[in-house]
């Protein structure tokens, strides 16, 4: 079964996949400092959710957030420039991988504190709707976040005040190295039930299914329904963070990883397209990313004299730290 625009959905998962692979090359080459949290394997979640949102809707992402930012429509070239710390980046080189934001396309930021963004997005959607804008939101978080009190408080506020926020749990099985069964008492869906929120589990490896589940939830929310939770069951194909490429941490059996990789969202969606269409999308994505890498590496590094720029929106200037 395919949705209204399987090509677009394929393009998004393919773009995220190749973006992450190119980004890892840039980490290895020393062009991206600090490493990244690769979204490899989870592309179907961001792509499916964002395909069911309107351009004006709002999202927040996570430390593993490249997919969310790209799927919502940020320019891959400016995103990659941000990862490379260039002034041409989305955040002018001030945010990096874990804080990439593009308010112009409704991305109120990747947020590197687990469980922190749900309340922020709830407030943003509430404020926009109070002004009369027909806006809904989707906030992504991992399975590790369901034990953060602040996220559970956000569930309560959103449900209490009927703020149309889709809480998207990307359950990839591990909070860094901690398996879900070692961390979560009860169930993830059970947490939603406690606040009277509908919860739907979905195969996060199938972009079409994620899109369909999200579209149904968004339709209910736009019709006046309150928040909902989607638990997208997915798997992280690569490391928690690229430092694992150098330091092997033994927490996932290799056969488990190998088996999970067989359910690849890029292949699942790609197989739904005629070969020539798929090849054309692949070629287009390659061209986009080649141009993005060139753009990122050509961008100037920020001037150290501007390190405190944007610290205060009010124009306040801070004292510098020198003697």
């Amino acid at each position, binding site marked *: 079964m395919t949705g209204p625009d399987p090509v677009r959905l394929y393009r998004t998962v393919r773009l995220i996949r190749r973006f992450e692979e190119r980004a890892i090359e840039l980490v290895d080459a020393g062009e991206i400092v600090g490493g990244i949290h690769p979204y490899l394997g989870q592309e179907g979640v961001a792509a499916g959710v964002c395909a069911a949102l309107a351009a004006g809707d*709002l999202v927040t992402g996570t430390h593993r957030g490249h997919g969310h930012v790209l799927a919502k429509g940020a320019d891959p070239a400016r995103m990659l420039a941000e990862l490379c710390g260039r002034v041409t*980046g*989305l*955040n*002018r*080189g*001030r*945010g990096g991988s874990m*804080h990439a*934001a*593009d*308010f112009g396309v409704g991305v*109120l*930021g990747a*947020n590197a*504190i687990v469980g*922190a963004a749900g*309340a*922020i*997005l*709830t*407030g*943003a*959607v*509430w*404020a*926009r709707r*109070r*002004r009369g804008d027909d806006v809904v939101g989707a906030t992504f978080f991992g399975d590790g976040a369901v034990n953060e*009190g*602040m996220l559970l*408080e*956000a569930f*309560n*506020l959103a449900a*209490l005040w009927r703020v149309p926020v889709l809480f998207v749990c990307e359950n990839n099985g591990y909070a860094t190295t901690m398996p879900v069964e070692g961390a979560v008492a009860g169930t993830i869906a059970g947490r939603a039930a406690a606040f009277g929120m509908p919860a739907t589990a979905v195969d996060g490896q199938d972009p079409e299914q994620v899109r369909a589940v999200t579209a149904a939830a968004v339709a209910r929310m736009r019709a006046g329904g309150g928040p909902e939770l989607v638990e997208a069951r997915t798997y992280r194909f690569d490391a928690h963070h690229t430092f694992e490429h150098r330091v092997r941490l033994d927490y996932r059996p290799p056969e488990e990883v190998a088996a999970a990789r067989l359910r690849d969202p890029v292949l699942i969606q790609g197989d739904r397209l005629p070969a020539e269409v798929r090849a054309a999308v692949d070629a287009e994505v390659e061209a986009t990313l080649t141009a993005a890498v060139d753009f990122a590496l050509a961008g100037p590094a920020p001037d150290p004299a501007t390190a*405190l*720029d*944007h*610290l*205060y*929106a*009010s*124009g*306040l200037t*801070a004292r510098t730290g020198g003697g």
Partner: protein
Amino acid sequence: MPRLSYRRALTRALADEMTRDESVFLLGEDIRVAAANVTTGLLKKFGPDRVLDTPLSEQAFTSFATGAALAGARPVIEFQIPSLLFLVFEQIVNHAHKFPLMTGGQCAVPVTYLVPGSGSRTGWAGQHSDHPYGLFAHVGVTTVVPATPADAYGLLVSAIRCDDPVVVFAPAGALDARADVTDLAPVPLGRGVVRRPGADVTVVAVGHLVHDALAVAEELAGQVSVEVFDPRTLYPFDWDGLLDSVSRTGRLVVVDDSNRSCGIAGEIIATVVERVPLAAPPRRVTRPDGAVLPFAPALDRAVQPGRDQLTAAIQLTCKDG
């Protein structure tokens, strides 16, 4: 001349800004019934959509306000207890404060955090009596501590209009202050004021301690001429105003109702001695290191900076050098 209480000054500031700007709204615990006697009458005037009673979810509603601010609103949060700021420190510092820089200037987070009743409220003991303004000054969040009704009005108005997060500490020790107020006007953030001119020593007093410093200055008037400087805003601090005062007096005493180690008094002294030669070593009167306010009134008072300590510090500083 109309007499205005400190609390009513805060109420007026909220009402005036809510009238002036539709994007301003209030949220907090028990604010519809005005349990802290600050939001009094505002529910009736502005309705439940702009005066939101929240569940006891400080972390979530603090970040909710951050999100609302990102979407163009100007939230004002009332916290009933100063120690709740410890609970939401992460939400303010790690999110609200950091968003403008981390996003490369894509957003502003104009949230006001109002704490009516900061510091000791006799008998409220260890967990309700903190005065953590120094923490916010340390992390670089705009921090104001008005001492008078006129400043309570003017600084709260400026805080709400500011495009950055601002914490407004309304010290419990100042809430009963009343003053003749003819002109209510915004008070600029970051601008201190000389409350009493003097020639021999500059006393920097924070918040309610301004009133103690003025009383001590009056008591000592026959012996020493004390200038009382009220910074009003602790971050950004009015260094020019203070340095101007200390350049004239050559002596400095700071009285500060927060803990000694890494407290704002230490920063004030450090900055002055970096810039101005003093005639005598500067002194500070503060809470002790690591202070936890004990319950019994005599113990509570023993831990707070007192007038006797301030008098002694002024006399020592003026004897030295």
